[in-house]
């Protein structure tokens, strides 16, 4: 076998592929939403609600998947392939069985391989449609959400600590440096009600006048709301975690540059030894060019001649 170079045929395809390239500073993760062979009505609704919350940055698959079992070895190959295909690194997988009814698996991938998994059961679910509120308050698509985590179990319980991180990663949206304060309009509220279960709800934020520059916050529940009961969870492998937590080196401090209130920006310049003796001489050196020298001579000559008649 020999290798052949395959490149995209169109510039557009090339641009799309370049979007999949690893970035120094990542801006956001895409979410893949899919389900197993069987789902309940509740789970269908949960998945579509999650898709609606993240519609700007998510892919939803509607076909049945019979060979996905993320917790079992060999059952994740198909999932990893989908992750590669759709360039998604957050996975929401729903399945429904007698043993684990209304089962939701939240997973993350690193380099298109499973990084960690949390399995939760959905209980007491209330869909987005069932909430009645003034539609003017509905959060805008893609706005940066607030998060409120309540309860000591998020620190003491291993499962909930993990779930908290996954939930934050799942719903945090785009990573931004600059935030428009006018666009603050939603909050996810997660309350630990027991060491394994979390009451989660999604609210709209209303900014009310308070007389100061800081507005008074008011919450209006817009749904969905549900209880998540942690079933199984798999933490990332320590070495993989270390690898995945790497960040780009912050820009190095510029050497020999100081700031002065009076003089402004100041720099020290050190000249290295010029090593003139070692310089190789070639014919390209300007001073050695015969035509130039002659032209210069001629010029001076003509100038002198011009001067003389005057």
């Amino acid at each position, binding site marked *: 076998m020999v290798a052949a170079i395959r490149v995209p045929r169109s510039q557009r395809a090339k641009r799309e592929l370049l979007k999949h390239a690893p970035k120094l500073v990542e801006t956001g993760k895409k979410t893949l939403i899919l389900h197993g062979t069987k789902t309940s009505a509740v789970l269908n609704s949960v998945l579509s609600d999650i898709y609606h919350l993240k519609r700007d940055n998510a892919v939803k698959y509607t076909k049945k998947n019979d060979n996905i079992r993320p917790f079992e070895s060999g059952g994740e190959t198909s999932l990893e392939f989908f992750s590669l295909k759709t360039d998604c690194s957050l996975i929401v997988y729903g399945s429904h069985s007698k043993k684990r009814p209304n089962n939701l698996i939240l997973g993350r991938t690193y380099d298109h391989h499973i990084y960690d998994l949390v399995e939760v059961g959905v209980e007491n679910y209330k869909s987005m449609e069932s909430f009645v509120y003034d539609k003017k308050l509905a959060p805008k698509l893609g706005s940066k959400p607030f998060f409120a985590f309540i309860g000591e179990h998020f620190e003491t319980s291993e499962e909930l600590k993990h779930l908290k991180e996954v939930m934050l990663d799942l719903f945090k949206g785009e990573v931004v440096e600059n935030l428009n*304060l006018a666009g603050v309009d939603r909050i996810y509220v997660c309350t630990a009600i027991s060491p394994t279960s979390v009451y989660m709800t999604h609210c709209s934020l209303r900014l009310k006048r308070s007389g100061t520059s800081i507005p008074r916050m008011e919450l209006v529940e817009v749904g969905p709301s549900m209880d998540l009961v942690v079933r199984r969870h798999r933490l990332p492998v320590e070495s993989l975690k270390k690898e995945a937590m790497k960040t780009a080196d912050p820009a190095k401090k510029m050497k020999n540059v100081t700031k002065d209130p009076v003089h402004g920006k100041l720099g020290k310049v050190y000249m290295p030894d010029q090593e003139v003796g070692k310089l190789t001489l070639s014919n390209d050196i300007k001073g050695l060019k015969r035509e130039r020298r002659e032209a210069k001579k001629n010029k001076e000559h003509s100038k002198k001649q011009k001067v003389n008649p005057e």
Partner: protein
Amino acid sequence: MAEEAAATTSAASNFEVDLGHLMAYDPSHHVAAVICNRAELREECLQKATDLAQAVADVLFALPPNEDRDGPIVRLPPPTTRLPREKHLPKPKPPTKWEQFAKMKGITKHKKNKREWDEQTQSWKRTYGYDRVNDDRDIPIIEAKATDEPGVDPFAQRKEEKKKRVEKQDKNRLENLKRAAKVGALPSHIQLAAKALPITGIKADLPKKSRKEDLESVAGMASTATASGGKFDEKLPGEKPPKHPGKHRKFLPVVEGKGIGNQEKQQYDKVLNSLLSKHSEDQLDVGKASSKIHTLY
């Protein structure tokens, strides 16, 4: 009022606020173990969440804003809760063979102009690419030298040399890309696909492997090639109905209807007109004309 304010500030100091993620966490709060009423739980959560949202807002809205047309914009600090990356950090591309050589020899890159003066055509031309300086197409005459071998076409030779240079460059590029792939620094738009070696002794262009569609269409044709059009035949498992069942030919009504009118007459007129106008001086060959009509319909 003052007491209330004091209470909120003391509570706020217990919250952990991560402004980078706009997140607030209250680790001290303990939800009553047995909550009989769901509505009560909801009320309590929303009450607490309002406090937490306020705690985030207190810090967020205190940041110095940059007034923009769309609203005040603040710069968020980097988040304290660290989340894993999606993909590995981009790996640096290894230097190519030429870059290694150039570094060893101390050869530095210098920029060339995009356009150069072409002596052949006496005009400015591209340095590289189509319609460039010293283009093979622009050379009308190659002067013979004493060293030239007789019977060799200098133009063809030039073309051949160019082709070889291009092939060599392609090979070098492939080698460089392979080395980049080894360290995982292949540009994401390039794939190195395996290509089978041509087997010696066998014709290079082997018959194409039949595709699924071909097989399906053949199967469909075979199943309908009975007197009943395959109506009473047993279907094979996975067999699909033929792709284009039904009528292929369309006949116009013989009797003039209301809507269609005399379409048939018009069609024949059209054909006749075209025939007659083309060969107006020839006599009409009835046999030929009728065959044309048959092929048309």
